[in-house]
């Protein structure tokens, strides 16, 4: 009976984990597909709309004014005819007045929000779109610029019913859910079988846990493969759709002229025109007008799909040939594969964190915890990891668009420009966070970690809700300040929780695990938030984040074991000595200057330098996302293992030195090669180095004499702040060496290597003195 109960509860927990994990990955896949599909549909609309906009621009250059444009309905009608899903095609002036649609003169105006979006987005992008949930329509906005690079005279607006755009994505969602349901059912059966097998084994619990992870992982991989297949098919379908649209439009253009009496031999400069259209569609290799019998090489391309055209007045015939670039399509399919892999890995991260929580809950029996020795895993390790995961999941849901929120308000902020105002929320968050670290670090000894944790968690929930409700830029900035305070207080409290572990070894193991949870939360939160934002808009995502962050409060109250909640850090006799101010202690200051700040600055290669470098090579946000994922994977899956190995084989200062050395090597390698591959290698090395180096630094400062006087948590708070200083200094350093090109990054790496050597030497001298005086 007891065995049966055990099997039952094991299966139940595993199935819960299966449902959570598969639910998360399916939701991400569906969200990602919807986002990609919508973007793909908008791109095909933009091809047709862009052509019309170019025709209008040409006429404007010939002196026709946009507010009195004879015959504009001809261009707009052509767009509507080539896009069956489209309801309406309009032209609005720069002041937002709608002047025309496909039937001729029209009245109306774009909303203030639309005009703001147009002004903001079209300054940097060729198109932008929005979903209007009042009318249930998608609206694509394309600028009309008479002079290339000049101000827009107006905007071409394509309006399509939301249902028409979402239909395909809806079909995908239903198909995926059905398929995943079948796979999940098979997984549940496998879990049941696994539980039964585990029950009869002496190492049953461990076998069950590992086996469940493998089964659930395989289920996710199977679902991921199915998703990838659907993504692939959708992409191929979208290229076919775009090709069909372009061919229809070009046929219409050419045959329209033929109907007006123009002959094929009078279509001068059409090659330039077709080249322009080809350039706007990345998957086209060539577009040619084959005037029957011409022996031009381009017209003989066997890869051309031919579209016959009408004969002209002189009886001459021709055909339109469009060739798709197989190389580009293959490259895009490879991107889709990598993106699918990224979704899968993020889902596995989520699954792993959830498994730690559920297995910990499943294991928690009063008799077991009382009998647990320090050699067993301290509960604080799981709790700090999961709490960090939850916190960063909620915090990073808004990571992709916090700077953009300032641009959504009607009013400006303190007279700053758009880009200046965009930086304020993050700067304020960091500044207030730094202050909070110092204050929380000094208060934690008096109040214990739990009070600070409750305060921090409540504050970040409040901050997220405030961000959701912010009616003005000032209110939003205030909300971000509150976020900085709450998040850093909660982070310091998590360090404080770890500090309550009696065993030095367990404390050292807890730090990389906490970082692993943090980075898992970062990756999962960022991808979830970005997908939600594309569906709901920015501010509603803060509400969802508030709900997630509220789970931290619930977890602290209900998930953290009572004994952990009540635990306080061990205070040694030496800590009763009156405190000296920490920064007067040269060893900790020296450590900050030689290691903490420089390594943190060097690690800004990923968030600061890599996106700029990748963009300069024409790479998109998916490439940047992959780099962040690689970094996150190092922390989540490699960090705890590497940290354990380092603890076993190296002393703390050598662990710090080795990680700093690997960081330096990463930068030097990139500076030497300067390629995208070298950049990815650098990101990998930085991830590896930081995954065990960052916790090692915290352990190191906690072992310094100053920590015995001020308390480990306080000194670790200083360490956190020193890392923040590095995060601020890093971009300045990278931009400072930008004049040297990629070699400048190598110079930074060599400088870091020098500082590392100085640290090693000074640490050796200090150690020698300590041993001599002992």
């Amino acid at each position, binding site marked *: 009976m007891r065995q049966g109960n055990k099997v039952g509860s094991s299966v139940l927990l595993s199935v819960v984990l299966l449902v959570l994990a598969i639910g998360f990955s399916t939701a991400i896949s569906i969200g990602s597909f919807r986002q990609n599909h919508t973007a793909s549909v908008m791109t095909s609309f933009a091809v047709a709309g862009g052509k019309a906009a170019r025709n209008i621009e040409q006429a404007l250059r010939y002196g*026709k004014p946009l507010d009195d444009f004879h015959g504009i309905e001809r261009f707009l009608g052509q767009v509507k005819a080539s896009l069956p899903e489209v309801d309406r095609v309009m032209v609005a002036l720069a002041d937002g007045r709608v002047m025309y649609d496909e039937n001729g003169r029209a009245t109306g105006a774009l909303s203030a929000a639309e005009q703001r979006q147009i002004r903001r987005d079209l300054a940097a992008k060729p198109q932008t779109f929005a979903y209007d949930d009042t009318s249930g329509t998608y609206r694509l906005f394309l600028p009309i610029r008479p002079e290339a690079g000049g101000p827009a005279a107006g905007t071409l607006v394509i309006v399509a019913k939301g249902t028409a755009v979402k239909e395909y994505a809806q079909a995908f969602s239903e198909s995926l859910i059905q398929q995943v349901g079948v796979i999940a059912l098979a997984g549940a059966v496998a879990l049941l079988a696994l539980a039964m097998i585990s029950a009869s084994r002496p190492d049953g619990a461990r076998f069950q846990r590992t086996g469940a992870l493998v089964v659930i992982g395989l289920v996710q991989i199977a679902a991921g493969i199915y998703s990838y297949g659907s993504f692939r098919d959708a992409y191929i379908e979208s290229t076919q759709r775009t090709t069909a649209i372009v061919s229809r439009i070009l046929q219409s253009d050419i045959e329209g002229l033929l109907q007006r009496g*123009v002959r094929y031999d009078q279509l001068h400069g059409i090659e330039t025109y077709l080249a322009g259209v080809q350039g706007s569609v990345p998957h086209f290799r060539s577009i040619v007008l084959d005037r029957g019998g011409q022996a031009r090489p381009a017209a003989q391309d066997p890869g051309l799909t031919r579209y016959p055209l009408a004969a002209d007045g002189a009886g001459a015939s021709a055909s339109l040939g469009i060739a798709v670039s197989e190389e580009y399509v293959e490259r895009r399919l490879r991107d889709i594969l990598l993106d699918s892999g990224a979704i899968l890995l993020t889902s596995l991260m989520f699954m792993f964190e959830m498994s730690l929580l559920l297995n910990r809950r499943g294991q928690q029996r009063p008799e077991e915890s009382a009998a647990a020795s320090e050699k067993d895993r301290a509960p604080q390790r799981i709790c700090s990891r999961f709490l960090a995961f939850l916190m960063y999941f909620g915090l990073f849901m808004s990571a992709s668009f916090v700077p953009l929120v300032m641009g959504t308000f009607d009013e400006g902020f303190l007279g700053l420009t758009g880009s200046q105002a965009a930086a304020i929320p993050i700067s304020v968050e960091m500044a207030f966070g730094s202050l909070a670290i110092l204050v929380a670090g000094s208060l934690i000894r008096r109040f214990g970690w739990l009070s600070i944790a409750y305060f921090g968690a409540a504050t970040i929930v409040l901050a997220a809700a405030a961000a959701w409700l912010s009616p003005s830029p000032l209110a939003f900035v205030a909300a971000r300040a509150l976020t900085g305070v709450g998040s850093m207080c909660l982070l310091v409290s998590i360090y404080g929780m770890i500090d309550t572990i009696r065993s030095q070894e367990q404390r050292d193991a807890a730090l990389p695990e906490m970082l692993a949870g943090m980075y898992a939360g970062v990756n999962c939160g960022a991808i979830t938030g970005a997908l939600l934002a594309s569906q709901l808009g920015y501010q509603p995502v803060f509400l969802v984040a508030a709900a997630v962050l509220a789970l931290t409060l619930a977890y602290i109250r209900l998930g953290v074991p009572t004994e952990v909640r009540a635990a306080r850090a061990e205070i040694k006799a030496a800590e009763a000595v009156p405190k000296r101010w920490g920064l007067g202690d040269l060893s900790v200051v020296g450590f900050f200057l030689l290691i903490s700040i420089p390594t943190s600055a060097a690690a800004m290669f990923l968030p600061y330098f890599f996106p700029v470098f990748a963009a300069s090579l024409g790479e998109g946000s998916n490439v940047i996302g992959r780099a962040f994922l690689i970094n996150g994977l190092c922390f989540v899956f490699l960090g705890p293992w590497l940290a354990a190995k380092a603890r076993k084989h190296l002393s703390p200062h050598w662990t710090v030195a080795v990680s700093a050395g690997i960081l330096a090597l990463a930068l030097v390698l990139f500076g030497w090669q300067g390629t995208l591959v070298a950049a990815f290698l650098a990101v990998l090395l930085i991830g590896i180095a930081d995954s065990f180096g960052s916790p090692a630094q915290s352990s190191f400062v906690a072992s310094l004499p100053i920590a015995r006087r001020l308390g480990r948590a306080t000194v670790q708070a200083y360490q956190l702040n020193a890392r923040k200083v590095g995060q601020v200094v890093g971009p300045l350093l990278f931009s400072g060496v930008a004049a040297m090109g990629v070699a400048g990054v190598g110079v930074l790496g060599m400088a870091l290597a020098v500082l590392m050597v100085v640290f090693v030497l000074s640490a050796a001298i200090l150690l020698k003195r300590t041993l001599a005086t002992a």
Partner: protein
Amino acid sequence: MRMDRRDFVRRAALLPILGSSLLGASGTASIAATPAFPVPRRNGNRRWRIGYAEGLSFINFAGTLEGIVRGLDRQGWISDTSGMPYVDGQSDTKAMWDWLAARDDQYVEFVPDAHFGGLSSAPAEPIVEQLRAGDLDLMIVMGTVAGQKLATDAHTTPTLVFSATNPVTAGFAKSESDSGRDHVWAHMDLSRTTRQLRLFYETFRFKKLGVVYEDTAGGRGVASIGQVEEVAERLGFTLVRRFVDRPTNTRDPEIMERYYAELSRAWTEIAGEADAVYVTFGQWTPDRFPALARILIDRRVPTFSQSGPEEVERGVLMSIARADFRGIGNFGATTVARVLGGAKPRGLPQVYFDTPTIAWNLEVAQRIGFQVPFNALLAADNIYTKITGFGG
């Protein structure tokens, strides 16, 4: 990103300028918003008596008159003008006027003997006498010459002048915003020539531009020479000028033949000197124009018509000009209605930009060796593949 719901309750929509909607599907009013047009009414217990004057028979004059009549029909001052004898390209206004005069409309009377044509050669004094006697309530005047003769202080009958190239330089209007006389109003589109020349120059980058015109105040006004000179100085090309005398009587065949001979001589001379020719308003008939255009075509000189697509059809390479007369007709009808409603002509907006259309003649292009770009063809409103009346 989804639209924020809160944005839909914000008052951010702009109200359209009322005048634009009043003027119909084409054309724009001047800067100020125009109030609604008055409700049709009689002049006490009688109808309003309207007269008409023109310098000569011209397509633009007939088209503008037709547009004004249609506009008055739409506004309810007259009814059912569908039977009016007018076809596109027509220059005769007498038949139209006779048809209008024979009607019995409720509010307005197109006075049968108040159609005055040929003012380019005929004296204006009898008309002025009639106006001074108060016989007419409003005069519709077409063209620069007629405008110069009738938009004067010799009478106080409201006089609305249309289709004059530049009333300011012609001397019968003070400025774009002020006619200078309480009873005078003149339609203004002073930047049209500038727009045309800028486009012509950007297409061909000529160094010397040929222009033929009558070297009188009226002739310079008709051809908008002041603007041509201004643009030439700004863009850095020089003018090659030739002068011809305006025919004193367009009904006299001998005078007209002399005129055509002068034109031929002038165009032949500038064809030899200029890189391009700006064809200004002239008093040729449509059937005689192709022969004149041949002079420039044979010498492979690019040409731009100040007038519009009718000349492109008959042998000019390109033009950017008004689409049709509906827009100016609506604008004119509204002005007439307001004057009849009691408004002073001087206080009414005069500026109205004709809706421009782009016209190319591909046969001309082929003959002069110019390849019209594909993009330009797509943007064109009128494409002529033959030269009407060219005869091979």
